[in-house]
């Protein structure tokens, strides 16, 4: 008999398995054979239940069935309705849901299920409702609607919940039918059964969710009490926050609506509800410190809970609050510090990154010491979170760069995977870019790192940077040794980039050129083609002066075509007689729309904490956008004479969401010109738009004179195109104005499948919203690392001081933010943070006015007991007229 189950090869694990798993050696074919017992005239209920379990086990393990197998099993299972055994019936329900029969098969079971729906046994009714609603299509619903409606208000919670939850699912596919249950659902909201109330509220809200007024009424009536179930209470808090968000416009006058309800929930006896309420309060838009305090207190209590889930929930929420209101969280610092040693590393990491955000400059050193101990025993993904937090800390307190840079370089030398190392290198690169003082020490740290770096990608990236930045440092020659070491010791890819980096030194610094040439000649014997080719090219060109300039372009200049387009052109280029011509490559940017759309839903591994620690826009992630704009604009010949692009604004939407045409505008400011870039998208598949242009009425903008307009030749469905309009304006004057815009185009009906035009088409136009050019468009945020030095370097002659009364304001924080937004300047040295109850505040702002004129502002604000705010503004700039202009901005605001 042993031959039936031949013992597997001597493997301990398998041996163990065979001992206790009732499913050992299970096989799909055999189980399907066994399923024939379902057809027996005399059903053995227990045996049948076992076979179903086996089938479910197979499905659960990921086994798939062919369509025929599925159909066969389904038909067999339907036979089991003959058995009266309850356990078996329950398994049959489950099995039918798992197989999910096709619509033409459903008919076989509907009568059995409808019979169960009318059964006296509540559990039969509940289950048959769930099964039937799961597998049915709209047609059948009409027949059973009456039963479902009754079930919603059934006195047994199991039946009522089954109907309500099924309703929530059905609402997606058959909204009309479910909406007719409104009265019954409303009755069920008052149910005494906790879960019924929860399900009823969820369904009722979904039925009404597109009707703001109805939702608002629902919230108003329910927040007065009568919701007892904790889960339903959580839902109600969510709905309330939504209502608050949508009615947020008239908050200036008085208290926020429903805030009292949220605050009341903070005292609820269930943690689930208090947490939901605390989170809702912290997420209120423009939340004040008075509103925040009770929520923070609740979260602080959670921090010392014995339950990890509570600690995690609290610290995660506080971490988010710390991004916008760091001072509100400082009260929890002591509790937070004890969490650094928490067993749960997620909690520890969140605690430490929160502390990094709330800490002030003086606590940095102490914190860094604690983090050093902490780093050794956490996983790479958490280390990345810490590195990112430190990067933003360093940007906040540039003075502390030495401590933080040392920390980064020390962890760079420790063990770690690629992503972790990349995060550190990226951080150092950003610090080098943002904090000029940190450049040299940063470069040295990176040099040391590539001495012993196993990641080719990072080595080449660093070598590239050394080539760019090294020659500009005080002692360029010291980097040569590090770079040449790479030529000797590394793989071909790294060697090639080291050769290029060397050549850049030779190119930039005449004194070093002979030495670099010697080193490059040694590379002639390299065993890799690319390295030899590069060395030969550089040696030849470095030796001759007249082509030096050309080389400079190829080494330092950027390609003026988008890489993606170049790649596409090269791929379609067939090696033939005609040489490849770079100028044939399209300069039009490919639409990035698809990427943007995906962004909110995409779930990436790295996102875990990334989103939480992302700083308030302090990271210079915007650097790439101006580059792309610059390339796009320089591809249009008419704009070439405008000089250097000074500033590009963020896109301004000129249409409502989900209209036929979606248009947003970007303002590109030049010294004597302004270009409006209109990104237009046609959102109707049946239309092709041609000759799309934006006609601008600039009568409200006297200083501006239209000089050029470029239309979009053709705008197919969902492919964005760019139209441009350029204006001339006086140089050096802060010209402002309002522009009204109309989109003009020629519409053709097209067949969406083939894209062919179906008729002649007609002219049409579409009114867009107005666009304004304002003073901040002429100022870019450029931080300085040492404000005092920079301030003193500017001529006190050009200082302009004035005082302003700002009238009665809610608090200082919001007033400050408003002033900074009006000026469009960069707060320096962490002076953008002020205590929520502060009576006075001084902030240091830096920026650059159009024409490369540095502007610095010392801004002092004070508030008195009557909430009268006074402001003192001291401005220094490289040009007196600019100092005056800043005051004008404030005076006109």
């Amino acid at each position, binding site marked *: 008999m042993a031959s039936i189950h031949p013992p597997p090869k001597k493997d301990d694990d398998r041996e163990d398995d065979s001992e206790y798993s009732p499913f050992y050696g299970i096989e799909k074919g055999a189980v399907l054979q066994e399923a024939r017992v379902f057809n027996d005239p005399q059903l053995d209920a227990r045996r049948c239940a076992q076979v*179903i379990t086996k089938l479910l086990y197979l499905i*659960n393990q990921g086994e798939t069935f062919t369509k025929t197998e599925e159909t066969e099993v389904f038909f067999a299972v339907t036979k089991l309705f003959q058995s009266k055994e309850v356990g078996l019936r329950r398994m049959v329900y*489950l099995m039918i849901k798992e197989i999910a029969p096709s619509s033409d098969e459903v008919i076989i079971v509907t009568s059995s299920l409808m019979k169960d729906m009318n059964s006296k046994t*509540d559990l039969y009714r509940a289950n048959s409702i769930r099964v039937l609603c799961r597998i049915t299509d709209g047609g059948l619903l009409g027949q059973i609607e009456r039963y479902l409606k009754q079930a919603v208000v059934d006195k047994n919670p199991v039946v009522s919940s089954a109907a309500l939850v*099924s309703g929530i699912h059905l609402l997606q596919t058959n909204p009309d039918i479910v909406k007719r249950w409104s009265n019954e659902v409303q009755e069920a909201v008052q149910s005494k059964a906790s879960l019924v109330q929860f399900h009823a509220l969820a369904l009722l809200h979904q039925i009404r969710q597109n009707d703001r007024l109805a939702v608002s009424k629902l919230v108003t009536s329910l927040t007065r009490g009568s919701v007892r179930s904790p889960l339903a209470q959580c839902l109600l808090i*969510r709905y309330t926050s939504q209502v608050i968000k949508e009615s947020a416009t008239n908050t200036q006058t008085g208290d926020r609506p429903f805030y009292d309800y949220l605050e009341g929930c903070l005292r609820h006896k269930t943690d689930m509800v208090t947490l939901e309420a605390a989170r809702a309060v912290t997420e209120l838009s423009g939340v004040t410190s008075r509103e925040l305090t009770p929520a923070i207190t609740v979260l602080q209590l959670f921090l010392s809970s014995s339950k*990890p889930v509570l600690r995690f929930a609290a610290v995660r929420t506080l971490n988010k609050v710390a991004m916008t209101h760091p001072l509100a969280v400082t009260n929890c610092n002591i509790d937070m510090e004890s969490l650094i040693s928490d067993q749960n590393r997620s909690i520890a990491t969140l605690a430490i990154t929160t502390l990094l955000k709330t800490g002030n400059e003086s606590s940095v050193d102490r914190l860094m010491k604690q983090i050093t101990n902490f780093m050794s025993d956490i996983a790479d993904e958490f280390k990345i979170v810490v590195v990112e937090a430190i990067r933003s800390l360093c940007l906040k307190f540039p003075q502390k760069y030495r401590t933080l840079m040392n920390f980064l370089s020390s962890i760079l030398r420790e063990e770690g995977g690629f992503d972790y190392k990349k995060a550190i290198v990226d951080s150092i690169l950003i610090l080098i870019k943002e904090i000029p003082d940190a450049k040299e020490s940063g470069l040295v740290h990176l040099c040391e790192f590539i001495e012993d770096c196993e990641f080719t990608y990072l080595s080449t990236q660093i070598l590239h940077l050394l080539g760019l930045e090294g020659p500009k440092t005080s002692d360029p020659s010291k980097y040569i040794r590090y770079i040449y070491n790479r030529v000797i010791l590394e793989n071909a890819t790294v060697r090639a980039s080291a050769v290029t980096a060397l050549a850049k030194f030779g190119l930039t610094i005449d004194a070093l050129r002979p030495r670099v040439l010697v080193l490059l000649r040694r590379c002639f014997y390299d065993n890799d083609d690319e390295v030899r080719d590069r060395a030969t090219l550089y040696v030849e060109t470095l030796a001759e002066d007249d082509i030096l300039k050309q080389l400079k372009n190829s080494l330092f200049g950027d390609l003026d075509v988008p890489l993606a387009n170049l790649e596409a052109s090269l791929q379609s280029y067939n090696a033939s007689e005609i040489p490849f011509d770079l100028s044939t490559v399209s300069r039009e940017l490919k639409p990035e729309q698809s990427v943007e759309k995906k962004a909110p839903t995409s779930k990436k591994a790295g996102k*875990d904490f990334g989103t939480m620690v992302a700083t308030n826009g302090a990271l210079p992630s915007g650097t790439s956008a101006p580059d792309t704009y610059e390339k796009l604009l320089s591809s249009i010949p008419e704009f070439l004479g405008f000089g250097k692009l000074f500033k590009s604004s963020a896109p301004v939407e000129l249409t409502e969401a989900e209209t036929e045409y979606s248009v947003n505008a970007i303002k590109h400011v030049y010294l004597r010109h302004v270009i409006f870039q209109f990104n237009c998208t046609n959102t109707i598949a049946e239309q092709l738009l041609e000759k799309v242009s934006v006609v601008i009425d600039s009568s409200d903008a006297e200083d501006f004179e239209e000089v050029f307009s470029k239309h979009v030749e053709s705008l197919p469905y969902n492919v964005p195109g760019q139209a441009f309009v350029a204006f001339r304006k006086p140089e050096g004057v802060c010209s402002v104005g309002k522009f009204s815009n109309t989109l003009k185009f020629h519409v053709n009906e097209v067949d969406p499948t083939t894209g062919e035009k179906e008729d002649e088409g007609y002219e049409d136009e579409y009114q867009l919203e107005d666009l304004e050019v304002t003073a901040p468009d002429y100022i870019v945020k450029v931080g300085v690392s040492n404000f005092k030095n920079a301030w003193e370097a500017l001529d006190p002659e050009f200082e302009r001081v004035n005082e302003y009364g700002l009238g009665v304001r809610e608090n200082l924080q919001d007033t400050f933010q408003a002033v900074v937004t009006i000026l469009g300047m960069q707060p320096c040295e962490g002076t953008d943070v002020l205590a929520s109850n502060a009576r006075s505040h001084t902030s240091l702002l830096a920026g650059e006015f159009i024409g490369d004129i540095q502007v610095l502002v010392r801004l002092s604000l004070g508030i008195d007991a009557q909430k009268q705010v006074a402001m003192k503004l001291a401005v220094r700039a490289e040009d007196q007229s600019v100092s005056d202009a800043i005051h004008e901005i404030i005076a006109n605001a």
Partner: protein
Amino acid sequence: MEVSAPLIKNILLLDSEGKRVAVKYYSDDWPNLAAKLAFEKSIFAKTQRTSARTEAEIGMFDGYIAVYKFISDLHFYVTGGEDENELILATVLQGFFDAVSLLLRSSVEKKTVLENLDLVLLCLDEIVDGGIILETDSHVIAGRVAMRGADADVPLSEQTISQALATAKEHLARSLLK
């Protein structure tokens, strides 16, 4: 922005090697078997060394929040979206965990779970329906799984004992056959 009711993404019951014992996915975030297995592998690897035996533990995994609790050679997980209320997830986990304990009469280990897999699968079916929390009270869940009240003559206790006896008999027979 659309507000949604709390949604459960999946409930996992893995063994001490990270292999599936019983799982249920309520979301399309994992479109195929490979993606599901990869998630299970990743979450198991990241939680394996933690001690979640007395209190439920929690963490972020691949952009999801998961709460988990271990007992003997079994690992229980409940996963939700990254903005989900952690305590709601914890309540669902507790409901599942306690209902299984009730149904298996406290001998919660891989062996008994496999022997009573039908009950555990029904448990999953009674806790969450298509991502929406159906019930969190373990006694109510266990009662519904056992169809208590549906059939007066076989109460829960006897039912499980007779089932246990049956499996024991089967077990004995099989070992004799070898």
